[in-house]
């Protein structure tokens, strides 16, 4: 088979192209930088957004999935709204009883009062934690798992006993790094003593519950001397999945009636939250694609420019090759391979950077970086695409060279 054949003759042009690329390695490496940046940024951001999406899905499930609807008390943003809000009592614990009675399609209610930061201390030292007062249903509705060494029951929780369930970070702080040893320890919450009766099962270093402290709402109301406290949020679980579509509207209508027509709450589903998060990630991805696109385009222009300059500087060589018997198609492949090798050099380095997150141990970063074989193939395809696009013009010009003219230089 002749080395000039289209199918058989790719090793020779590839080896000649490699010699040319290696002969100008620094120039090739500099030209490849833009492709490297484009591919690397694309892969890293893809891995990051995949990880964020996965984490959001996990969070979604931990917040009760599609069946949990969240009601959040809103604040007035101007004087007019302030006057309007004054007509309503706001989101109160007593609302839950009315809602439970009027909306039988819901079978779980989780009133929450955010106790804020910095009100929890150990032996006079403040413990950084986010306090939430809530009912026992919170564990069931949100599927919260707790490690406990004692008989932590609904009856004790709802009786208003001074109990705490704390996150892993808080538990570590109160027991010198051994979360299990935190059980039974006493903390001060708003200056009042309460005993650690459970530790939230941690889902990793960056689990948002690690810094949480949960106290019985019954104890909170007793200590505060307020039987009907204002709620920060109310989570409601729809019994049947079929009712999820109508449930937010029904809940909102009921709350409007309870709040004398004042819209002082936001009602959202976990699907809404997930969708918002998806939109944010999609926007982030789009920006990344644009940046990577510009970088890859610069890479292509750079390779094209170097390819044309290189062609001009070795017209004689290429003419000689033709005189020696190299066909137009062989020269086309040789020059095209030169662009492909430069793009491949950048793309290969970009792929290596894209693979690097796989070496980072789980839990080191807030998000798991996820990259699939398809993503890597995509990176490779992009590099090859840049090489082909930028190499076509010089390759075509090389193949069209007239050997007589070319050898004159």
């Amino acid at each position: 088979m002749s080395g000039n054949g289209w199918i058989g003759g790719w090793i020779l042009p590839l080896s000649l192209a490699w010699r040319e690329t290696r002969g100008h390695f620094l120039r090739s490496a500099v030209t490849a930088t833009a492709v490297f940046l484009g591919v690397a940024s694309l892969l890293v951001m893809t891995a990051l957004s995949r990880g964020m999406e996965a984490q959001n899905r996990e969070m979604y499930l931990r917040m009760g999935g599609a069946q949990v609807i969240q009601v959040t008390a809103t604040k007035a943003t101007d004087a007019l709204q302030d006057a309007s809000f004054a007509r309503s009592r706001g989101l109160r614990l007593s609302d839950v009883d009315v809602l439970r009675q009027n909306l039988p399609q819901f079978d779980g209610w989780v009133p929450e009062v955010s106790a804020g930061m910095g009100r929890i201390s150990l032996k006079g030292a403040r413990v950084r934690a986010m306090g939430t007062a809530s009912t026992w249903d919170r564990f069931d509705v949100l599927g919260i798992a707790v490690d406990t060494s004692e008989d932590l029951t609904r009856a004790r929780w709802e009786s208003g006993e001074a109990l705490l369930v704390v996150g892993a970070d808080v538990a570590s702080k109160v027991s010198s790094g051994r979360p299990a040893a935190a059980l039974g320890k006493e903390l001060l919450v708003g200056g009042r003593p309460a005993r650690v009766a459970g530790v939230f099962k941690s889902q990793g270093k960056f689990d948002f519950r690690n810094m949480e402290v949960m106290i019985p709402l019954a104890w909170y109301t007793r200590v505060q001397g307020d039987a009907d406290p204002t709620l920060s949020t109310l989570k409601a679980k729809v019994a049947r999945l079929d009712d999820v579509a109508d449930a937010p509207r029904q809940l909102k209508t009921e709350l409007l009636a309870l709040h004398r027509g004042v819209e002082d709450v936001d009602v959202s589903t976990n699907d809404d939250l997930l969708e918002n998060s998806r939109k944010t990630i999609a926007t982030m991805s789009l920006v990344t694609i644009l940046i990577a696109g510009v970088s890859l385009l610069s890479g292509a222009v750079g390779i094209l420019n170097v390819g044309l300059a290189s062609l001009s500087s070795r017209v004689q060589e290429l003419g000689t090759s033709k005189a020696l018997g190299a066909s137009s198609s062989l020269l086309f492949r040789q020059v095209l391979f030169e662009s492909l090798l430069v793009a491949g050099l950048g793309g290969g380095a970009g792929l290596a950077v894209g693979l690097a997150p796989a070496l980072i141990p789980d839990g080191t970063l807030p998000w798991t970086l996820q990259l699939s074989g398809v993503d890597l193939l995509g990176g490779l395809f992009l590099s090859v695409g840049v090489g082909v696009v930028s190499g076509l013009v010089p390759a075509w010009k090389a193949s069209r060279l007239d050997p007589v003219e070319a050898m004159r230089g």
Partner: protein
Amino acid sequence: MDAILETKGLRKSYRLGKEDVPVLHGIDFRLGRGEYGAIMGPSGSGKSTLLNILGCLDRATGGQYLVEGRLVSAFSESELADLRARSIGFVFQSFQLLPRLTLSENVELPLQYLGIPRKERRRRVAEIMERLGLGQRGRHLPMEVSGGQRQRAAIARALVKKPALLLADEPTGNLDSTTTAEVLDLFRQLHEEGNTILLITHEHDVAVRAQRRWKIFDGLMEEMA
């Protein structure tokens, strides 16, 4: 003796603006297998144009041109490339070695174009390099050796594929007198070994070493006694 090259009424003209400028005016020429010929002529006589056509680097605008009995005027670009690769070995005045390839790699290149297996390529390259006294210079780049060695490498590159015809364009034009003598001795030996050689030169001393000589002037060619 069968003909390696044969032209019948070969013409070539170039388009200059709206005018055709004739360079070759109907050349009849024949070079038999195993012959050693030289075409002489001053600058502008058309000898380089003729060489380019004979070497299948350019096309005639009229007449017929046959290589080993095949009419090449009708050949496609790729057929011409194949003919150059298989049947014609070029030696240029300025050597035209590829600067990033070693002498061995330069000599090996035509065999690669022919798709000859690596082992056979290496054997043939070693043989011709040794034959031309370049056995110790194979790993050197062209810029690392003398002009004479470069031209010998260029001749080795032309001969390695065992072409039907060795075409040399002013092969001694860039060489000193000693090296010129060496190269011409080499051509004589190659001729004695049965190679067909056609060289183009403007130097009488070079042309007289050939077995047959032609003179080209103003696009017309005639054989010299």
